[in-house]
């Protein structure tokens, strides 16, 4: 039998070789969580430097490195993997699938992201971190103005970006091809829908940054002329390439967050999501519009009034589908049996916070006004309201909501509420004053300000808020540790929830569904519960389940590119060739040796069934 010779690993080798989407989800959460703490630490250092005027904690170049790494880490190495963590943990379960379409590629996506993130962060020990801002604008990011730090930025992001791209393709195919019988597109839970649209945006946005980074790399390493004005290059080109990726990127981040909020609000209101189909179409519309607005980041570049007006209006139209979503959440809550669990507190806290961020977004979309706001703390306040207040709040909501499904344990609700209130108050204390700091003229990215210019109080409050957010995060960590030492105790359906993932045991078994479920409507599990059934109606008889074999190749492939990255940075191209060669050889091995996988037999399933 094929399964007889498949090696099953344990311990660290299990984690390095796993192709199980649920374990890859945990890897994403661990790595993304680590980078989130790192980025948060950098944020605290920024705020400590700006706590009082004329401070000298981190001056000039050091400050530039900290702020660049804060932005880059939070967007690419914390927010993205945390969302991929949720997509991995939840999407296959929500559509009734045993696995993702490409388990091997899924693992490769994680390891490439991790290799890129580690590569970038080793810059701290190798001559200094990137310091050209997270947007890496040319010509500042060319080798005439910044040193090796920017090479780390270019290569780290390139490697991590490839991982994200293939992860996106994996989820697209999974959602199109792997849905259980009866799970039509218009019965998919909203988190799956938003993951689907996010994956589409990833597919069409990431190649643009790939090309941008290649061009920057060619300029820096091979003396190319893309951004070299004396040879006819054009520095504004980088801004276009960066933002035609960068603006869709913020929707890549926020759409799954919308999905999480939709699930949580609906479950804890005990109501079907209000306006499900309008939610779906709003999501699609946002995905489409996300590619139409990139130049609103460049109003002050000098594109002229026509371009500015078009991009300004296009930007404002995004408020329409977003508004649809906000009202749908409110109408879902309206008249519902609301339970104020920690997950729901985060979701309810999200709504007004995100609305504030959205409104300042519309303000920024007005080009003449943007000339005043541009590069000021008003912009900082705006995007922290949408990214922390939008994305991070929903990540927390999702963590409390799906923790039992991932780990078989419920997070402590008391500590959870303490986490919510400290972080929520800290957040608003930190970022609300920054709107006014910006309007009073405080520019972003400056490492200091002078006393007596009306900026002292706002900055002091902001720092206190940041510290409070740090306290909130520590409470979350305590909660995680306190929960993980307890015995697994979570019921299969602890929240009386609505979607398929709650119809299977907590934590989900390796094969997810013993029998593929038959889906008979939107909120598939809720429909069965209302019909008096305890579990889903199976769509197939009990039979052996085919599983993919674990593989170390994704890890080695990522190490190959990691090594190649150093070769490029230190201009020793032999090392690059060796590194890329390692990756290509792994691809060859993967192609030549067929993966037969193994089977979990019926007897084994029945044993586990009895235990659950």
């Amino acid at each position, binding site marked *: 039998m094929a399964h007889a010779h498949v090696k099953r690993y344990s311990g660290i080798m299990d984690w390095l070789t796993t192709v199980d989407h649920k374990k890859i989800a945990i890897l994403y959460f661990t790595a993304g969580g680590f980078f989130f703490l790192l980025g948060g630490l950098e944020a605290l250092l920024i705020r400590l430097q700006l706590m009082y005027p004329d401070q000298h904690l981190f001056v000039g170049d050091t400050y530039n490195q900290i702020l660049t790494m804060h932005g880059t880490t939070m967007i690419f190495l914390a927010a993205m993997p945390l969302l991929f963590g949720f997509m991995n943990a939840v999407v296959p379960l929500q559509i009734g699938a045993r696995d993702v379409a490409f388990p091997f590629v899924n693992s490769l996506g994680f390891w490439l992201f991790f290799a890129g993130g580690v590569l970038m962060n080793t810059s701290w020990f190798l001559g200094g971190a990137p310091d050209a801002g997270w947007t890496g604008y040319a010509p500042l990011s060319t080798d005439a103005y910044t040193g090796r730090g920017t090479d780390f930025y270019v290569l780290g992001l390139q490697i991590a970006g490839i991982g994200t*791209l293939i992860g996106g393709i994996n989820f697209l195919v999974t959602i*199109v091809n792997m849905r259980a019988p009866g799970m039509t597109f218009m019965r998919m839970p909203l988190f799956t829908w938003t993951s689907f649209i996010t994956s589409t945006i990833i597919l069409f946005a990431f*190649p643009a940054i790939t090309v941008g980074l*290649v061009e920057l790399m060619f300029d820096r390493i091979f003396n190319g002329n893309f951004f070299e004005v004396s*040879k006819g290059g054009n520095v504004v080109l980088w801004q276009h390439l960066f933002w035609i990726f960068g603006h869709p990127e913020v929707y890549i981040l926020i759409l799954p967050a919308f999905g999480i909020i939709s699930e949580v609000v609906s479950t804890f209101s005990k109501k079907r999501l209000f306006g499900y189909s309008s939610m779906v179409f709003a999501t699609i519309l946002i995905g489409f519009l996300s590619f139409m607005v990139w130049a609103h980041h460049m109003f002050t570049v000098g594109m002229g009034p026509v371009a500015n007006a078009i991009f300004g209006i296009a930007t404002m139209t995004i408020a329409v589908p977003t508004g649809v979503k906000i009202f749908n959440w409110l109408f879902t809550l309206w008249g519902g049996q609301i339970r104020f669990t920690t997950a729901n507190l985060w979701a309810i806290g999200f709504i007004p916070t995100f609305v504030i961020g959205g409104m300042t977004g519309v303000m920024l979309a007005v080009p003449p006004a943007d000339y005043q706001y541009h590069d000021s703390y008003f912009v900082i306040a705006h995007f922290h309201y949408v990214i922390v207040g939008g994305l991070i709040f929903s990540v927390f909501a999702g963590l409390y909501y799906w923790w039992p499904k991932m780990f078989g344990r419920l997070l402590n609700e008391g500590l959870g509420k303490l986490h919510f209130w400290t972080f929520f108050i800290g957040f608003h204390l930190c970022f609300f004053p920054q709107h006014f700091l910006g309007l009073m003229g405080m520019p972003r990215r400056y490492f200091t300000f002078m006393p007596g210019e009306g900026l002292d109080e706002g900055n002091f409050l902001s720092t206190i808020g940041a510290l409070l957010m740090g306290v909130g995060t520590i409470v979350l960590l305590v909660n995680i540790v306190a929960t993980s030492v307890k015995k697994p105790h979570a019921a299969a359906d602890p929240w009386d929830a609505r979607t398929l993932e709650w119809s299977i045991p907590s934590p989900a078994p390796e094969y997810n569904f013993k029998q593929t479920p038959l889906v008979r409507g939107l909120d598939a599990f809720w429909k069965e519960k209302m019909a008096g059934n305890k579990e889903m109606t199976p769509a197939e008889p009990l039979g052996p389940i085919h599983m993919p074999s674990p593989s170390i190749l994704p890890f080695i492939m990522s190490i190959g590119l990691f090594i190649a990255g150093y070769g490029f940075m230190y201009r020793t191209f032999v090392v690059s060739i060796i590194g890329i060669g390692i990756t290509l050889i792994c691809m060859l091995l993967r192609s030549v040796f067929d993966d037969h996988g193994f089977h979990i037999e019926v007897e084994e399933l029945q044993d586990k069934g009895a235990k659950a």
Partner: protein
Amino acid sequence: MSTAHHAAGALPHEPEKATLEGKNKILGFWFFLGGETVLFGTLFATFIALRNQVPEGPTAQELFNLSTVALSTFILLTSSLTSVLATMALHRHKLNALLGWMAVTVLFGLAFLGLEIYEFTEYVSEGHTFTSSAFSTSFYTLVGFHGGHVLFGVIWITLLILQGMKKGLTVVTAPKFYVAGLYWHFIDVVWVFIFTVVYLMGKVG
């Protein structure tokens, strides 16, 4: 869905889509090509923005020799035909014809690469190097990315031919041949745009 229904020698008409794995692979590859389209689209955008930026070195008009490029185009488009013939052989379950047409495709690909290398060395001798101007950098990046794709395709299809000789035509190998054909068409389509945007527009635009 199970492969067991199709005993050896009784492959379905489209063996590449006989299993869920095969279907996933083909759909995933289409998505991948969607991403590749954006990749080349971005490279084209860069090239169009910079193609007249030639402060030093020869311009496109002085440089390009359409007869060599026309020959390259002819060769590469013909290779698209042979890769279709390979896919048709796949659907008729004719392993030898499949491998044979794949081999012809590889030969055309190699001829194209040879011509491209010859063309590039000519350009370098005329002072059109990677670092001479923004035009030259964007030219070599765009055309070189395409050439790199052709090279990857040539190596990939060669290895697939070897695999086909060893493993034969099964529901596992069929999707591999099929997506390699898709890939080859894609790089041909990209070349059509390069021929138009880079060479024709460079000569007359």
